[in-house]
C-alpha cells in the first residue's frame, strides 16, 4: 500500500522520463538479438542491405525463394495466441495438480509446459503450412495468397544438415550434462556441510572459494595442459568437464550454501532425533525442500558450461568440439557472405535454448542472482 501511494505522487515528468528510459533500454537490449534472427532467414543481398526496411522485408529473398504468405503469417499469429491462451489457463486445465492456493506442483508444471509446447509445435509446424497452402490454392488471386516477406530456412539447413552441426550439439549436451550433474552432486554436499557448520575452517573454505572464483580461466588451463597431454586426456570431453566443474565449484558452493542456510536447521535436527543419520536427514528431509535452490544453481552451472569458449577451444578440436567454439570455424576460412549467414544461423540456433530457459525459468534466474547479494 505504501509503495503504491508514493507511486501516485510521482510527478508526470519523472514518470515519463523513466518510461522513456525503460522503452529505450528494451530496444537496445533486444535489437542485436532480434536483428540476428531477422538476418538468419534472408539471402545475403537482403541480410546485408544498408536499408532497415529492405532487411526486414527481404525483396530479393522473396523474389528468389519466396516466403510466408499473408495466410501463413495470420495462422502463425493465431497459433501463438492459442499457445499463450493454453498457457494462461494452465491452472484450470491442470486443476488436479494444483495445491490449495492454486499453484501447480512440479509434475503439473512440467505437464503444462509440455502441453503449451505441443500446442505451439503442432499448430505452427503442421497446421499452419497445411492450412496456409490450402487457402492459397483456394484463392490464388487473393491479396493474402502471395509471399509478404522474404524468408528462407536454407542457412539453417546448411548448418544442421550439410555441416553436421548436430555433432557439436551432442558434444555440448554431453559436456553441459556432465558439468551440471557433477557440480550439483558434490556442491550440494559441500553447501549443506558449510551451511550447518559456522566454524572457522568453514569460513576459510568460503574465502578461498571466493579467491578461486576470481582466477582467470586461462590460468587453470595453462596448469592442466601438460598433465592432460601426458595422460592422454587432451582432446577428450571428459577433460573439459573436469576443468569446468573445478571452475564452477566455488560459485556452486557459495550459492547452494546460502540456499541451505534458508532451510531451518531444526528440520534436520528433528529428523535426527527420530533416529535418522545425518545423510538420511540430508537426503530425505532437507533435499525435498531444496529443489528450487538446486534448480537455480543447476541453471547457472548449465549456462557456464554451455557458454564456455576458452576451455573447449584449448582442449578439444575438430568433430569433438562443442557448439560455441565450433561457430568460429566459419571465420577461419575465406568468409563469403554466405558463410557469414551460416554462422548467423548457427548463432541463432545456439541462442534458442537459452531464450527458452529465460522464458521458463525467469523467476529462478532472478532469485539466483539476488541470492548471493541480498542474503550474503
Amino acid at each position, binding site marked *: 500500500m505504501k509503495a503504491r501511494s508514493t507511486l501516485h505522487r510521482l510527478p508526470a515528468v519523472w514518470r515519463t522520463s523513466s518510461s522513456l528510459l525503460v522503452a529505450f533500454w528494451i530496444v537496445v537490449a533486444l535489437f542485436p538479438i532480434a536483428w540476428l534472427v531477422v538476418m538468419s532467414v534472408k539471402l545475403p543481398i537482403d541480410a546485408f542491405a544498408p536499408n532497415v526496411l529492405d532487411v526486414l522485408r527481404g525483396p530479393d529473398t522473396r523474389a528468389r525463394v519466396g516466403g510466408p504468405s499473408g495466410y501463413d503469417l495470420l495462422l502463425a499469429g493465431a497459433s501463438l495466441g492459442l499457445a499463450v491462451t493454453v498457457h494462461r489457463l494452465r491452472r484450470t486445465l491442470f486443476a488436479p495438480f494444483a495445491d490449495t492456493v492454486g499453484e501447480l506442483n512440479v509434475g503439473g508444471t512440467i505437464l503444462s509446459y509440455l502441453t503449451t509446447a505441443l500446442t505451439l509445435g503442432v499448430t505452427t509446424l503442421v497446421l499452419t503450412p497445411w492450412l496456409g497452402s490450402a487457402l492459397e490454392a483456394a484463392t490464388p488471386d487473393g491479396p493474402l495468397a502471395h509471399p509478404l516477406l522474404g524468408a528462407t530456412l536454407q542457412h539453417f539447413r546448411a548448418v544442421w544438415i550439410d555441416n553436421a552441426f548436430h555433432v557439436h550439439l551432442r558434444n555440448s549436451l554431453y559436456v553441459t550434462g556432465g558439468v551440471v550433474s557433477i557440480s550439483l552432486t558434490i556442491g550440494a554436499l559441500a553447501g549443506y556441510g558449510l551451511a550447518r557448520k559456522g566454524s572457522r575452517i568453514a569460513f576459510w573454505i568460503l574465502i578461498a572459494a571466493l579467491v578461486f572464483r576470481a582466477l582467470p580461466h586461462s590460468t587453470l588451463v595453462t596448469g592442466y*595442459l601438460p598433465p592432460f597431454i601426458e595422460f592422454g586426456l587432451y582432446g577428450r570431453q571428459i577433460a573439459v568437464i573436469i576443468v569446468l566443474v573445478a571452475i564452477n565449484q566455488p560459485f556452486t558452493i557459495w550459492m547452494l550454501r546460502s540456499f541451505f542456510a534458508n532451510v531451518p536447521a531444526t528440520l534436520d535436527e528433528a529428523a535426527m532425533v527420530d533416529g535418522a543419520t545425518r545423510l538420511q536427514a540430508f537426503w530425505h528431509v532437507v533435499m525435498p525442500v531444496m529443489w528450487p535452490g538446486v534448480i537455480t544453481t543447476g541453471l547457472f552451472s548449465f549456462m557456464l558450461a554451455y557458454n564456455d569458449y576458452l576451455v573447449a577451444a584449448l582442449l578439444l578440436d575438430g568433430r569433438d568440439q562443442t557448439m560455441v567454439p565450433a561457430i568460429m570455424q566459419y571465420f577461419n576460412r575465406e568468409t563469403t557472405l554466405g558463410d557469414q549467414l551460416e554462422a548467423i544461423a548457427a548463432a541463432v540456433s545456439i541462442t534458442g535454448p537459452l531464450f527458452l530457459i529465460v522464458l521458463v525459468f525467469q523467476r529462478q534466474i532472478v532469485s539466483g542472482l539476488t541470492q548471493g547479494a541480498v542474503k550474503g
Partner: protein
Amino acid sequence: MNQRTFWAFVGPSLFMMVLFIAGPLVGVLVQSFQQQRADFETVERESCTPFGCTTETTAVPVTDDDGRIVTRTVWVGWDNYAALLDPDAVRAALNAPGDALRQLAQIRFWDALRFTVTFALVTLPLVLVLGLLLALAVNTLTDALKGPTIFVTLLPFIITPVIGALAVRWLFIGDGILTAGLERLLEREVAMFAQGWTIELMMLGYRVWHVVPFAFVIFYAGLQTVAAERLEAAGIDGATRWQKLRHVIVPHLMPLIVFVSLIHLMDSYRVFDEIVGFSASGYRTSLQYLTYEFLVPDESGNRSIGRASASAVLTMIGVVILLVPLLRNTWKEQRRA
C-alpha cells in the same frame, strides 16, 4: 554437526578444488620458470662437387620413433618473465619523453595490461549507474509491465558472450546496419573494424550491454527492501527526490553496490570472449587472451607453455592487487556475521 561429518560432506568438493584449482596454480608457478626445448643433434653432412668435398655440420631436432620432435624441460629462471615484460624496451620507452606511452603500447604485454585495466575501470561506473537508473525506472512501472520488462532485460545477460559479441559485430561489420546508419548521420565513410579505438569502443559497449541486466536485477531486488517510512520521513523533512536518492536509497544499496563491483571487476578483468567475437587480437588484446594465445599451438604444433605460465602468473598478481580492497571488505563482513 561434528567435525567428521563436516569433512565427509565437504570432502569431495574440497578434493576437487585442491586437485583441480590449487594444484594447477602450483603447476603454473613452476612452469613459468621452465621452457620446453627441442633436443638438437649435430649432423655432419659431406657434400661433394667435382672440385672437391666439403663437410657441413647442421643442427637437426631429434625425433622419436613416431617422427615427433623430442623435447626436454629446461629451467630458465626469469627468462619467460623478461620476454613478456621486456624491461629493456620499457627503459627505452621511459627515456623517450612525450612518446613513452606509444612506445609502451608496442610491447604486447603492457598493451594487454593497459586494455584490460581500462576495460574493467571504464565499464564499472557505467554498469553501476545504468543498472541503478534502470532499476529505479522499472520500479515506477505498473506490475503488468514489470514481468515482460525483466524478461527482455535478462536476454543480453543470458546470451553466450561470444555470440553476443558476434551479434554486435554483425551490426557494424562492413556496411552493417548500424555502420550504414552512422555513415548517413556523419555523411562520411565509416569503417568500425579498421582501427583499434573503434573496436575498443564496441567491446566496452558490448560488455556494458551484457552486464547492466545483472546490476539491474540486484539493485531492483534491493529497492524492494527500502523502508517506505524512511523515504516518507525524508520527504516530510523537505528532501528533494535527488536528496532522497543520495542520502536514503544509495546508502541502503551500498552493500549491493560493493557486491556488484566485486563481481564485475573479477569478470571484466578476465575479458576474453569480446576479443574472440570481434576478432580484435590484431588491434587489442587482454591479459587472458595473451595467455590463451601462447597456449594455441603454432604452425609446427608447439605451445609456449612457459610463456603462457608466466603471463598467467602476472595476470593473477594483477587480480589480487585489483581485488584486495574489496575482498578485505567481504572478509570483515563475513567475520562479523
